[in-house]
């Protein structure tokens, strides 16, 4: 997530730092007011990261959809349906775990492509297509599960949601990640030298922060039970998502289509085809989220994933994405997901009543975007 020059321009970088500051403030506040000061403990942070994973995985896909100027309201319901399929394939049909995983991801990808095709080629606004999907796929989930929950017994499958990476593997991952960060810093420094603005020391200084964050993160996770598998999946998805949006032709086209669809079309971009693809990507990631969710709960529920679409959209928007399209980063969306999860987690620890949590979360979302708009107008 460090090689983000084009989209993460200076203003956006400043924004990212501001968000990290807000997150830190939220954490410190919760730590101070939680009875027994349990918020900033390895155990709770591990729990928090796991809670972030499901929303985070969807938020990465949602971010790409939003950047292209579209929206998807159906992902919560698809989680219910795809999760139901995975449990149904294992428990009712008796197929192995692999088949269940493939079935769930293929189905949710197909749904994403189908809805994307309706939005892109049948000219039905994606808001409407996926609003229909929100109802229809929830209905499909209830129909498939017959209104009941289907338990999953496969322990390896449950591990997708509950297992942890052994400490040693965690450190290996950390070492690799730090190496990648510094490698990228060296490359940037060399590029800067080509342009005559030498800056090896500056690039290394800039790389020190993410490197320290990675090491600190693994250390904290290992201090409890190791990095949770859902978190590993989420971080992989986030990394790939950041790479796609920053460093692929497809990613650049998404920003162009969302930024100015006419200009994109006249520049020879096939807007429809790219919109179709981005819905497919979100569909696939929704399938992944459904597997994590089902594995974590240990069974498929007819109402699994309810309101997850709104969490994901909120995460993107808090992370600086514009619903008009053309603006937003994967990094921002991930931070947004973490902020949302921190609010959930912290307020539960403090003992804020359920209804009050919703009111506070809703208010914070609106205030955050309001402040962001005010800041944008000034600059």
């Amino acid at each position, binding site marked *: 997530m460090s090689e983000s020059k*084009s989209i993460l321009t200076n203003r956006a970088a400043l924004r990212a730092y501001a968000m990290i500051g807000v997150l830190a403030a939220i954490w410190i506040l919760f730590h101070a007011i939680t009875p027994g000061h349990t918020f900033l403990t390895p155990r709770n942070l591990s729990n928090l990261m796991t809670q972030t994973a499901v929303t985070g995985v969807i938020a990465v896909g949602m971010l790409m959809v939003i950047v292209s100027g579209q929206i998807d309201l159906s992902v919560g319901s698809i989680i219910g349906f795809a999760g139901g399929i995975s449990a149904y394939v294992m428990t009712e049909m008796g197929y192995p775990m692999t088949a269940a995983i493939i079935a769930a991801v293929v189905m949710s990808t197909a749904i994403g492509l189908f809805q994307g095709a309706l939005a892109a080629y049948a000219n039905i606004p994606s808001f409407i297509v996926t609003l229909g999907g929100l109802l229809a796929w929830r209905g499909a989930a209830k129909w498939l599960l017959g209104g009941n929950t289907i338990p999953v017994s496969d322990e390896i499958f449950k591990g997708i949601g509950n297992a942890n990476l052994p400490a040693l593997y965690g450190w290996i991952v950390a070492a690799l990640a730090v190496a990648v960060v510094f490698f990228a810093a060296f490359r940037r420094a060399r590029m800067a030298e080509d342009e005559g603005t030498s800056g090896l020391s500056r690039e290394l200084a800039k790389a020190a922060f993410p490197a320290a964050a990675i090491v600190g993160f693994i250390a904290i996770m290992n201090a409890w039970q190791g990095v949770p598998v859902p978190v590993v999946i989420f971080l992989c998805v986030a990394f790939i998502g950041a790479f796609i949006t920053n*460093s*692929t*032709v497809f990613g650049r086209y998404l920003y162009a289509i969302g930024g*100015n669809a006419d*200009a*994109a079309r006249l520049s020879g971009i096939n807007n429809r085809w790219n919109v179709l693809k981005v819905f497919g990507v979100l569909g696939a990631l929704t399938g992944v989220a459904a597997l994590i969710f089902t594995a974590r709960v240990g069974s498929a529920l007819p109402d699994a994933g309810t309101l997850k679409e709104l969490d994901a959209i909120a995460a993107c928007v808090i992370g600086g994405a514009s619903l008009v399209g053309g603006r937003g980063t994967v990094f921002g969306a991930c931070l947004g997901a973490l902020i949302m999860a921190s609010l959930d987690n912290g307020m539960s620890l403090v003992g804020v009543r359920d209804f009050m949590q919703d009111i506070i979360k809703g208010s914070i979302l609106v205030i955050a975007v309001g402040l962001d708009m005010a800041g944008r107008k000034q600059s």
Partner: protein
Amino acid sequence: MPLLEMYDIQKDFPGVRALDGVTFTLDAGEFHALVGENGAGKSTLMKVLSGVYPAGEFAGKIVIEGREVSFSGIRDSENAGIAIIFQELSLVKELSVGENIFLGRAPSRFGVIDWTELYRRAAELLRGLGLSIDPRAKAGSLGIGQQQLVEIAKALSRDARILVLDEPTAALTDAEVETLFHILDGLKARGVGMIYISHRLDEVFRMSDRITVLRDGRTVATHAAADTNKDAIIAEMVGREVTDIFPEPKHSLGDVVLRAESVTVFSEDEPDKRIVDDVSFDVRAGEVLGIAGLMGAGRSELLTAIFGAWQGRYTVTLELAGRPIAIKDPRDAIRAGIGFVTEDRKRYGLILDQTILDNMTLAALKRVSGRIFTSRSDERRAASMPMRSLRIKAPSVETVAGTLSGGNQQKVVLGKWLLTEPRVLFLDEPTRGIDVGAKQEIYAEINKLAETGLAIVLVSSELPEVLGLSDRIVVLHEGRKTGEFTRAEATAELVMAAATGHYPNANF
């Protein structure tokens, strides 16, 4: 006493004086035509009159029936009896004719609209104009001509005494034009003063009592229509020297690169209306082909269709370097080596939120970078060439495009298309809204590109620009080709005559 007097009107835009001491008068029951080239200041003058530019934003005096007025908005001018019918219709298509006529002033009791009364009055008004239009019909279901007439009914319902018509006949059929003129004659008899803006000199001479010519924001002359003729008016509209900002081009022409045969483009809104009607042209390597014409002549639509970007119906036969070729979307066009610097760079050319670099490499991304992965360093390397040669003034390639001046934005768009390494480059109004310095740089760039063998098709509303840059000029008038001149033949008068449909031996 004149109905309306405008004295010494002066209006500045940043860097441009749009109106420079214009004086204009209108008598009751008079039909007064206002003519001039695109950009002469006609529309600006009417915006001053209608309060679009409120008092204080311009200098000068407006007097209605002997009393000086100052409008702080459109509502004030409407109350003073001024109604403007713009080129683009302003009816709400989803509402009925009656609702449109009384929009914002519907007869009501206790805040509830009195529909019976509304439709009764609307029907009365339409009948009074001799129109058989159902006041309950949706405005959008009417043809453009009938919508125009509804606009007039709407203006009259406000007891307008000064009626401004901005190119009212541009979209009308001959029969509709006759109906319109019949109605206007009636209004004249009722003492309504009319200001008529039109490029169609035939109509201007048929209807007008007086004609005022504007040029470069100044009043050139006001004539009684009976005392003048078309040629004199055209000479006054054009009447300026082509200055030496255009160096004599040293293009050496090669083979024909692009040949477009019988291009016909139909309107998106009205599928049977031809915006471009059977136009053919070709352009050679190293040649600048100018396409001249007035607003609405179909120039942009012609290029858009060839580029595969027209969203309505069109037919076209293309040959590229002697071989037939089919272009069904902009991707095909780019692959074939056509670049298109579109009109309205903010809407069609740039992604304003993104950096210069992002914008510049967009159309050639797979060429300068990779098919799947982008490479920032490759992109920078590719963009550095146009960045330098076009002398784009910006702190770096990471500067956001929306923060640049108009001239630099236009250069970014030009750079974007140069990176696609085109063989043919379409330039649609490449210098609109940019300052003189940047204009000259773009002129020099156009000549330089032609010298390297690029075929250039240049659309411009500025006659001196077309005359100064082109090796050959094709003139369009209302979708038809009405003239083709070589550089040696072309004069401002000939081109303007063809562009206004006033060309004695038009047989192209």
